[in-house]
């Protein structure tokens, strides 16, 4: 690896310190990452848009502030990859969809604005499953992203581009959004940290909605501390989002630094295990539970009987909301317009545009949601799903009476191959089995790497679920696991990623 690519392997926390101390400039950091993106993204395809000029301008502004002695925030000058579902006033926002190709929003999402205010340098917009619907990024209209551990495999989804960018050292930080697991699942299969904050803890203003009652922006990073720093930077009450919580941000950074689980009560969810789970996933999960015990945690098994109904409830609630949220893409005010020949009616142009502009999974979910909300079916489907949601919240409430955090594998398998589940929606949906309950209940959850599955050498994620607004607890646990595994391993987790070598070889060959 060349000298500047070594710079890209630093943690975000270290980069920020280096910028603040003058060890490196923000511009140098931005250049190093832009350079790495240029060389590696043909193989990874993490980005849909790279904003080199705006990134360098933002980096220069940080360096200027430092030069005049202004205090810098804890992430000032650190580069970041932004999921293309959050609006940016200086870059297009496409949501991985043909229907929005080239759309230039006139406003910044609240998350975007807070990142800019924190001096974070936004490198570009990352690939995703179209409108965040999917678990592989294969549903992107602009082609799939690839998993840096094995380029023939998916990086997960829907925030697959963000996860791949972080794992490929294209950025130390990325923002994803989680609706059914879309941060944690790609985090898990790319061997990085992925966090879904408490619903309402991070603003949805400017997040192009998939399922409004579930969508939550959150961090994807290589370390738990970096995730906490990013979590803190984007969080807090936003009056532009009526569902934003007017409460203090939980002390996540302090918790990530604390990394102590002695005496903590940890509940293993009985229902999130067994058939359908890869043996390597179960092996690493069990080892990590034992590790926690060895660190002083009190581990018990907890039953959440309704979690097995979370997946069907989710696949009614999310499509219902999406069928309504995506109605605005109608070729009238922005985006793609197809079939306007002067004869066709508005109704026809809408239908033709939507047929061409949306991919198969989006169309499936729109029709499924339309069905679930139709008169005559509402009570049997949408109504029942909402009752299940209540039961899942009750399961969580009961469990958190007994334990401080709940744990499970993040996803039942490691990264699957590109194309393997592409036209088998039911198989694809299983990837979110363990992550969905926390989306439905709105509580916080974090995925931290816990080793490689022996059978395929691919990363396994360990999920920690915490009560609403107790996000700090999962950071404590995640940081403790990370520290113990790093100490035991003695080398960087990501250095085992064979895909990274392939990427670097390809980049070398291209030179």
């Amino acid at each position, binding site marked *: 690896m060349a000298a500047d690519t070594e710079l890209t392997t630093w943690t975000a926390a270290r980069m920020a310190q280096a910028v603040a101390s003058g060890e490196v400039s923000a511009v140098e950091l931005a250049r190093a990452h832009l350079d790495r993106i240029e060389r590696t993204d043909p193989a990874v395809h993490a980005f849909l848009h790279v904003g080199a000029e705006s990134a360098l301008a933002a980096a220069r502004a940080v360096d200027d502030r430092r030069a005049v002695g202004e205090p810098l925030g804890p992430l000032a000058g650190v580069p970041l990859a932004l999921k293309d579902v959050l609006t940016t006033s200086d870059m297009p926002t496409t949501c991985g969809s043909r229907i929005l190709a080239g759309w230039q929003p006139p406003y910044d999402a609240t998350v975007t604005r807070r990142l800019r205010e924190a001096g974070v340098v936004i490198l570009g917009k990352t690939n995703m499953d179209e409108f965040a619907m999917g678990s592989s990024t294969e549903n992107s209209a602009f082609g799939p992203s690839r998993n840096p551990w094995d380029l023939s495999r998916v990086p997960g989804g829907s925030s697959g581009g963000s996860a791949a960018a972080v794992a490929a050292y294209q950025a130390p930080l990325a923002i994803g959004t989680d609706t059914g697991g879309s941060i944690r699942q790609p985090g898990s299969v790319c061997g990085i940290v992925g966090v879904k904050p408490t619903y309402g803890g991070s603003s949805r203003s400017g997040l192009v*909605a998939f399922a409004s009652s579930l969508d939550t922006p959150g961090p994807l990073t290589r370390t738990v501390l970096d995730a906490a720093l990013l979590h803190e930077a984007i969080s807090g009450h936003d009056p532009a989002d009526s*569902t934003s919580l007017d409460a203090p941000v939980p002390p996540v950074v302090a918790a990530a630094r604390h990394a102590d689980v002695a005496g903590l009560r940890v509940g293993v969810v009985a229902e999130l295990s067994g058939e359908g789970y890869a043996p390597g996933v179960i092996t690493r999960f069990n080892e990590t539970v034992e590790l926690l015990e060895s660190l002083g945690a009190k581990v018990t098994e907890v039953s959440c009987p309704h979690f097995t109904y979370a997946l069907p409830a989710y696949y009614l609630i999310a499509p219902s909301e999406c069928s*309504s949220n995506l109605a*605005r893409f*109608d070729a009238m005010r*922005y985006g793609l317009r197809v079939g306007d020949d002067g004869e066709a009616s508005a109704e026809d142009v809408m239908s033709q545009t939507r047929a061409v502009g949306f991919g198969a999974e989006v169309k499936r979910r729109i029709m499924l949601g339309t069905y679930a909300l139709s008169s005559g079916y509402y009570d049997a489907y949408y109504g029942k799903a909402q009752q299940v949601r209540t039961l899942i919240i009750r399961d969580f409430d009961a469990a958190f009476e007994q334990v401080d955090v709940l744990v499970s594998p993040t996803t039942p398998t490691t990264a699957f191959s590109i194309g393997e589940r592409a036209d088998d929606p039911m198989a694809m949906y299983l990837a979110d089995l363990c992550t969905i309950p926390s989306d439905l209940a709105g509580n916080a959850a974090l995925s931290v790497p816990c080793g490689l599955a022996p059978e395929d050498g691919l990363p396994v994620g360990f999920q920690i679920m915490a009560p609403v607004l107790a996000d700090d607890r999962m950071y404590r646990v995640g940081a403790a696991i990370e520290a113990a595994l790093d100490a035991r391993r003695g080398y960087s987790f990501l250095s085992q990623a064979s895909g990274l070598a392939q990427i670097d070889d390809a980049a070398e060959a291209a030179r």
Partner: protein
Amino acid sequence: MTQSTTRPADVTPVPFDEAITRYEPVIGLETHVELGTVTKMFCGTQVTFGAEPNSAVCPVCLGLPGSLPVVNKTAIEYTIKIGLALNCSIATWCRFARKNYFYPDMPKNFQISQYDEPLCSDGLLKVEVDGQEFTIGIERVHLEEDTGKSLHVGGATGRIHGADYSLVDYNRAGIPLVEIVTKPIPGTGAQAPEVAKAYVSELRDLLRSLAVSDVRMEQGSLRCDVNTSIAPAGSTEWGTRTETKNVNSLRSVERSVRSEIERQAAVLDAGGRVIQETRHFHEDTGKTTSGRSKEEAQDYRYFPEPDLVPVAPARDWVEQIRAALPELPAARRQRLKADWGLSDLDMTALRNADALDLVAQTVAAGAGPGQARNWWLEELSRRANDVGLELAELAISPEQVARVIALVEAGELNNKLARQVVDGVLAGEGSPDEVVAARDLAVVTDAGVLTAAVDEAIAANPDIAAKIADGKLAAAGALVGVVMKATKGQADATSVRELILQRCGASS
């Protein structure tokens, strides 16, 4: 959808008076009122009228991807105010819902509305028609957002059918809209059209008194959908109703009910059945025509709006709003009637002419109630009629009318001159005093000039003068006319008469 509904050919309407002997109507009204908030329902964009197209829009009211609604608190307050004034119960907890359907003037292709959880429900409003009181049940009052406006280009002017394309302006999109829905109103018989009109009129007065909307029907800030059904007299079941959309004047409310009753009677007489459908009222013909058939099943797929949280108005807030309600129109009319000493008939006439506020303001400016009533209901109503304006649209203010009345009472103008002063004011010549000065309209009060004119008249009509001298005082009128003519009307007739009697040696 390929389904088409066969409709009976156009039928010749049954004359209303005949129809109503055989059929019993049930009516219902859905009224949409744009609230007079400063900003829109779910965003801080200013509410404007007549602004440049698409100049009052933001990401939220344009429905741009990623934008989120936030509820305008004043809109909630105004709606509660309306609900309280209509004797409704105010919900302790309710939600907004999405009403899903595609339409180019609706930026999100769903309307944020309320479905089965309205903010206010179960109220009433009393109206009076020809001295008879009707209690109109209020089903619900709820809040929603308005849509944009389409301009249809090509084809028949301004009509949607046959247009080549449309141009959309979203300035109106997102303006808070209150929907007030009555319960079905049976038992109004031949008065159904008048009851419908009286309800909308009373509602309009109520909304104005609450200062929650400027309620200008002609500008579309109050729009009515009128439901009408008829059933054979004595039938225990109601007929199939039609919904006549966007009836936008009081007169049209009345006419649309009348014409629907006439049309439906003809359909039933011919052995047909009334189709449940949306109809459109045409001001020019006074008739309704068929719109989209409701049987073509709009499935709105209502569900709770996930971008908003429930509205749970605190009881003490509701009570504060109740305590601050202004005097409502019915109570005010009672008070004014007593204060002014006018008859029921006078009060009804004032309301029908929409002159109550004008008279009240004229009285407030110092005029006597009787005089104020006379001027507005007679002279000024005639002028308004002549030029096809509403009374309030005349270019004369209540204060100016009060000044004219004061000039008459002071003897500086007579009635004829006063009318000329009003002419001048309406013609834009300035205030009453300016018109008096410019047109030199003051009553002739110079005793010498008057006496000379009277003496001249007596000299020219000795026979009449003799009759007066004989005590036939009524004959004086003829001489008054002569003098008034001679002074070009600028004399005070009473003074002239007294002077004639005096010069003829008679005493009054």
